[in-house]
């Protein structure tokens, strides 16, 4: 079995301006490790959307990234309000973001659809009132 690099991050929930920092760090690491640009882009986009969701909806959370030569596994966990209707949340254009969030250019209802589009495996485990766990896998091999 391939060697796995494990990374752990805490995403702050109160600071919009710092959203994306974790994704940037992981992107940099993957570039340094020599992953293909297409793989790095997929990870960066999927992670950024997850990170933004955590900031907008869940007051932050944690992100664990396991990197091996075969795949990148990202687990994003929060203690937010949960997603009452996952099917609806997966529809492009559906958003529950507030107006001030929309003014910043977010809340287009593309978060989860983008994550699905750019990941090879996506699993959501969510409980209303307790939080959401999102597991994403992106294959690194062609």
């Amino acid at each position, binding site marked *: 079995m391939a060697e796995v690099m494990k990374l752990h991050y805490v995403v702050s929930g109160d600071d*919009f301006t710092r959203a994306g920092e974790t994704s940037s760090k992981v992107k940099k690491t993957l570039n340094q490790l020599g992953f293909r*640009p297409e793989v*790095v*882009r997929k990870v960066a986009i999927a992670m950024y959307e997850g990170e933004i969701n955590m900031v907008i909806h869940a007051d932050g959370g944690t992100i664990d990234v396991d990197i091996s030569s075969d795949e990148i596994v990202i687990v994003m966990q929060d203690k937010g309000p949960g997603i009452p209707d996952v099917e609806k949340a997966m529809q492009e254009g559906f958003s529950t973001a507030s107006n001030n969030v929309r003014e910043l*250019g977010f809340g*287009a209802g*593309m978060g989860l659809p*983008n994550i699905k589009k750019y990941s090879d495996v996506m699993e959501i485990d969510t409980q209303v009132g307790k939080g959401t766990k999102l597991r994403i896998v992106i294959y690194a091999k062609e």
Partner: protein
Amino acid sequence: MTVSELATRLDLKVYTGEQSTRERCVSGCYIGDLLSLAMSKVQMDSAWITIQTNMNIVAVSSLADGACIIIADGFVPDDSTLEKAKEQEVIILGSELSAYDIAKKLAELGI
């Protein structure tokens, strides 16, 4: 065409981006102000035209691997955006022209 040549040909204001990083090639364009859409539509090495000026545009362009951001209609990026762009080596350019007029010029240049 490089970002540098593009900036000269379109008479764009260069807010951030060292001369060396502006040697990057541009090969396409996306126009939009919704960050999630831009995130998915801005292709590698393409120029992203927007009127958003907040710091999150830097993360989007950097993560999507765009060549540069062009801010249209004379909007001016926030100081925090410029600071972040310098840190992340993201090129921000600006123009008084509308997104449509900028895109027309890009098309005329074969982008």
